[in-house]
């Protein structure tokens, strides 16, 4: 703090210290929070809901969603890895790097790194939200203009199929768009009460392989074909019929 000047025409006077800054830090720290920096004070705990007291989260065993989430998670992970590679070429974790940088490196480096990272993340996320939006428009935009239609599914090459089944089945593949490097999700029954899924589905060397277990209940089953790094690209539908009594 500056010492007060003491002259004849300016009586002793104190001055404020220069502030370290005059604005909140809303940027990078805001994006990531600061959880990993500094020791937490005694008796402290995190902000927000406990898993127990807040919105209850119970496993319901809906595998389809689990898989979807897994898929989505991998997708985002892949993007982040890519973003990291491009931005830094290092394989350390981002947060670790940031923690190391924080305090020592130029704020600009930090900003550049984080911006690159978040841009990738945001692009990704926006993609999801846009899809969500088009569905939402279908449903809810009561007073809005006619919602845009999802991509039509005609005329796009679908993977060839290898099917094994000991009972009569019908299959179809609908692609929303052309896609390479597909993976298939397990097929879930249309009947919400029927949770025995068909898990023996995969895409190998561009071939869709489906095996229908002998005891699979009759019904219609659906699953998504997901393009690595880009999201859902099509659906697989399998109708499993009852074996007729005479065995035909």
């Amino acid at each position, binding site marked *: 703090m500056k010492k007060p000047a003491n002259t004849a025409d300016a009586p002793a006077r104190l001055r404020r210290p220069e502030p370290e800054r005059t604005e909140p830090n809303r940027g990078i720290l805001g994006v990531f929070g600061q959880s990993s920096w500094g020791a937490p004070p005694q008796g402290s705990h995190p902000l927000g809901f406990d898993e127990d007291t807040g919105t209850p989260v119970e496993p319901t065993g809906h595998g389809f969603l689990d898989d*979807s989430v897994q898929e989505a998670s991998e997708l985002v992970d892949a993007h982040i890895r890519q973003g990291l590679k491009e931005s830094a070429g290092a394989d350390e974790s981002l947060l670790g790097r940031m923690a190391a940088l924080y305090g020592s490196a130029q704020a600009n480096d930090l900003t550049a790194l984080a911006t690159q990272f978040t841009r990738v993340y945001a692009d990704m996320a926006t993609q999801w939200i846009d899809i969500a939006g088009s569905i939402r428009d279908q449903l809810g935009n009561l007073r809005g203009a006619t919602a845009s239609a999802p991509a039509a599914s005609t005329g796009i090459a679908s993977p060839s199929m290898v099917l094994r089944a000991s009972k009569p089945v019908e299959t179809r593949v609908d692609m929303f768009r052309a896609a390479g490097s597909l993976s298939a999700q397990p097929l879930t029954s249309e009947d919400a009460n029927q949770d025995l899924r068909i898990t023996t589905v995969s895409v190998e060397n561009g071939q869709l392989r489906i095996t229908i277990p002998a005891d699979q209940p009759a019904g219609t089953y659906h699953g998504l074909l997901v393009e690595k790094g880009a999201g859902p690209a099509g659906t697989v539908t399998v109708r499993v019929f009852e074996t007729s009594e005479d065995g035909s």
Partner: protein
Amino acid sequence: MGTVPKKVAIIGGGCAGVAAAFELTRPERRGEFDVTVYQMGWRLGGKGASGRDAETGRIEEHGLHLWMGFYENAFRFMRDCYAELDRPEGHPLRDWSDAFKPDNHVGVTEKIGENQWLNWSAYFPPAAGLPGDPLSDRNPFSVQGYLTQCLRLVRTLLLSVQDRGHEPPLATDDSGLAKAVTSLISSLLSTARSDMTGTAMRAARYGQLAVGALVLEAIGALQRILDTLRPGTDPQGPASLLDRLSATIRYQFELLIASDDEVRRVWEIVDTVLAIVRGVLREGVLFSPQGFDLLDKYDWREWLLSHGASPATIDSAFIRGSYDLLFAFEDGDVARPQLAAGQALRGAMRMFFTYRGALFWKMQAGMGDVVFAPAYEVLEKRGVKFEFFHRLDHVALSADKSHVARLDMSVQAEVKRGADYKPLVPIKGLPCWPSLPLYDQLKDGAKLKKAGWNPEHGADGDRAVNRKKLKVGKDFDFAVLAVGYGAVPDLCKELIAVDPAWQRMTQSVKTVATQAFQVWMDDTVEDLGWGQPPINISGYVEPFDTWADMRQLIAVEDWKTDPKAIAYFCSVLPDTMTGKDAHAHVRQNAVTFLNRDVAHFWPQAVDEKGFRWDLLSGGKGKGEARFDSQFWTANTSPTERYVLSLPGTLEHRVSPLYNRFDNFTIAGDWTGCGHQAGCVEAAVMSGLLAASALSGAPNLGHIVGYDHP
């Protein structure tokens, strides 16, 4: 320590000024600052002031005040204050937890037709911890975290619809298409139910995953329907199929909404949340150095609309309620709702996703009794001086314009024999502020009492029995201006003249007048037909959009016969009604409201002639005249006016940290304090910043939520 304490003059003893005084005189600072609070009139509190009626001990508030569970700094202040006060066992408000009680019910009313309204009461589950607890993360607020929370909210909401057994109604025609659409909707709704631990955990890492899952499920569902429909039935191909599909969906959804308010409300919130998530991502908030400030140029509703929320949604109770909460109507004109989107979003995120304990906390006595009396007692014990009846008239700069050289004051009244004014009165053992000055202590007290002199209001406030010119170096070293914003332009003409930042601020920040009334009744609200838990409800019709059930205060008031109900109502007051007849206007508004509108809450309180005036406790005479015994207020003086968060203005607020005048800082909910909304938390944050500006402490990182995106 041997050093001479630095003299600080704090002008204005509202939340901001008092918080600054509290911070500057913390025992850890070992007397570094010698603080004097100059306060016009007889009490601390400002927009949060309350008083006790001499006869009934009833509480009379400036307006309805609720504390929110995210007020980390304000609660920390209160908790420290009560701890230091160390009231004896048996004291009516011994601990901060006696003074504030959690309130988990929040209501909004919604318009469902011409003159038709519905009440919606929502229960918010208690969240971990208590406001003001230490945080393990230095800054736990992140856009990413909020997005995750948004999506969890969507899931929870959808789940709640399902759990209440609201299945979509059966289609009127039995065509495959209608059935398919019904199943799509139920599938979308059940998506939420099928979410699970795995999702939540991963979602905690990456905010968008939950919606990703939702999307995948939705696409699957849509695709299933297409598959079911396609075989041979539609000769016109997929395009027309989709047209028909969307028409049917809309029809089905309208059916669903028309037949089920719950589903509609849920839908409106889901729609809002999806618009938020979308907007935040599209506008690049995630990686903007400005955080949510980036959006402050837009109005909240317009912004939501531009990111796909439906017109019905932005007119929903939830959204209208956010405007009511912040009195966000320019010039008090309810036809002109205006609220900066970034701050609205920051406020909503903090309110819903970072509360601790409860969403709302209700004070168990008047705000003056709960907040300002304890603060006064602690500060006085620490040696802070209070100069009541001191009104600042002018802030004078030095010749070189570098600092504040003089503070010109009027003394509105003097205390007999030069003694200190003792401002508190005990009511049922609780130290309280009276509703009017304690005239007995004042020179000419009898005369002033007879005239009902009120130094907070109009011409009464202009009374000056003495003038003081406080000089820098002699009477103060530092000055903290902590008056309400409305008074600033007039007091700070010299500062505005020389500094562009002050010019920009005073050209853009605006305020609004408010009105409030309170009634005490001899019947419970349940007897009058209210069938839900005690509530704070907003979003209702003007002139009073907000009602709070304040029955908890009955116990601390001092009636001969206790009333059975206490109700507070509050709203903006249009600028067309703020003239000298304002008080009469508010009375008329209250009477009209009771006659015409209150039946929606209390059907039994109204008969064919209008409101049953005989219900009012302590009323004299008959009919409407009995209302005169109740309490109402028009908050129209400049410093009383509520500070608006208008789009395009928040960036112009000057921060307490701004160091243009080197012995001077500001505090108040109108400053650039990080949370730019008219609320107790913002005021307290500004007080902390002012203390930091003068002393470097507290460290900015310790002001919770200052470094918020």
